[in-house]
């Protein structure tokens, strides 16, 4: 068992239990900044926890970050763990982050698909979806990033329960998605929504279900390019920036399309490393470099949100 947030090995992949235990130690080590908020239970009744970073009252504007909705993208959850620690340790030390947290709250859902993540450790390392049963099919699970109420059931999502991009029987049928939607609606005042995935190095903004430009296209494109430049300043990692539809493929029912349509203007999705040598099996010694460069982009976006509240 990891006994302190300071002795945790961030350069390793961990099970869900270890990550959840570590979240407790982080909250205990930084009680005036970090708290663990349960946003609901997964299909298999695992708790879903977001870390809340807050220095003030409850009605502050906030930024949402989630990681690991596709469970096999392990460097994503590992990056989120590192990022949570970075936020906790840099507050009061780093002027930029401190000024962000003096104005905004940050919520970080470290493992957005806990059932899938547990399944990647126990049964199938390549599992991507949730673990919900599909009536009438032998195949299990829904792609939780095709299940949001944004162009649901449109192009780039499968009607076949056996497909890895099955959209599910209805929008928000997956409790993991519904929990986030409810939490965002109940908490209110979110100004930024960032989903972190991994594979192929992209920074994307809405939409995925449509290839038409969104009204804030120019602004989000500029913010995305600035963030990608900041990210690349550490190791020269090259990111493509653009709308989901234009730089990867048309995909309906995605999380940031929902958040943008809901009114959260600064909605972005990351695809972290790599370019195609290790696939979803990125060696653990690349966790910290990946997280470190990603942090620069996250900070860049959060600074922008801080300076452009609406």
């Amino acid at each position, binding site marked *: 068992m990891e006994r302190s947030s300071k002795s945790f*090995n961030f*350069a*390793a*992949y961990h099970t869900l239990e270890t990550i959840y235990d570590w979240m407790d130690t982080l909250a205990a080590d930084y009680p005036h900044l970090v708290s663990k908020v349960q946003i609901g239970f997964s299909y298999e009744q695992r708790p879903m926890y977001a870390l809340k970073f807050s220095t003030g009252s409850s009605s502050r504007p906030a930024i949402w970050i989630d990681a690991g909705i596709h469970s096999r993208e392990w460097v994503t959850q590992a990056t989120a763990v590192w990022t949570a620690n970075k936020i906790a340790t840099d507050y009061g030390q780093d002027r930029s982050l401190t000024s962000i947290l003096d104005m905004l709250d940050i919520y970080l859902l470290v493992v957005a698909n806990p059932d899938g993540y547990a399944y990647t450790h*126990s*049964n*199938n*390392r*390549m599992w991507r979806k949730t673990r919900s049963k599909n009536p009438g099919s032998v195949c299990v699970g829904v792609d939780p990033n095709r299940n949001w109420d944004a162009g649901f059931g449109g192009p780039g999502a499968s009607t*076949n329960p*056996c497909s*890895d991009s099955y959209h599910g029987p209805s929008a928000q049928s997956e409790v993991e998605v519904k929990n986030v939607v409810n939490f965002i609606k109940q908490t209110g005042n979110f100004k930024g929504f960032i989903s972190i995935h991994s*594979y*192929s190095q992209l920074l994307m903004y809405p939409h995925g279900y449509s290839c038409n430009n969104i009204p804030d296209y120019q602004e989000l494109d500029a913010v995305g390019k600035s963030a990608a430049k900041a990210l690349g300043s550490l190791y020269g990692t090259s990111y493509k920036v653009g709308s989901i539809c234009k730089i*990867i*493929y*048309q995909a309906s029912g995605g999380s940031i399309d929902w958040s943008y349509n809901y009114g959260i203007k600064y909605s972005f999705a990351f695809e972290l490393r790599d370019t*195609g*040598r*290790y*696939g*979803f*099996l990125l*060696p*653990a010694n690349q966790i910290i470099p990946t997280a470190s460069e990603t942090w620069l982009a996250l900070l860049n976006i959060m600074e922008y949100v801080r300076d452009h509240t609406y």
Partner: protein
Amino acid sequence: QKRFIGDQVLRIEPGSNEQISVLQSLQEEDDFQLDFWLHPTNPDLPVDVRVPIASLQAVKDFLESNGIRYSVMISDVQEMLEQEQKEMEANRR
């Protein structure tokens, strides 16, 4: 525990919109049990797909007969999984 012995990940480089259409038809083929990591969308982007060993020869034949370029990105997925597992055990210790 599901094992991936001999499964490969192919990086396919479609050269035209016609080849994209051919790859999209491959995507619809349930029997091969392909796991697309990057989907066929436009000729500027590669397509990455994990191919179970049982389908490997058929998929490679399909690509070659359609004149579509590809290379092997991961030659044995299970080998990489075992390395990852060892690394995790070492880290745990």
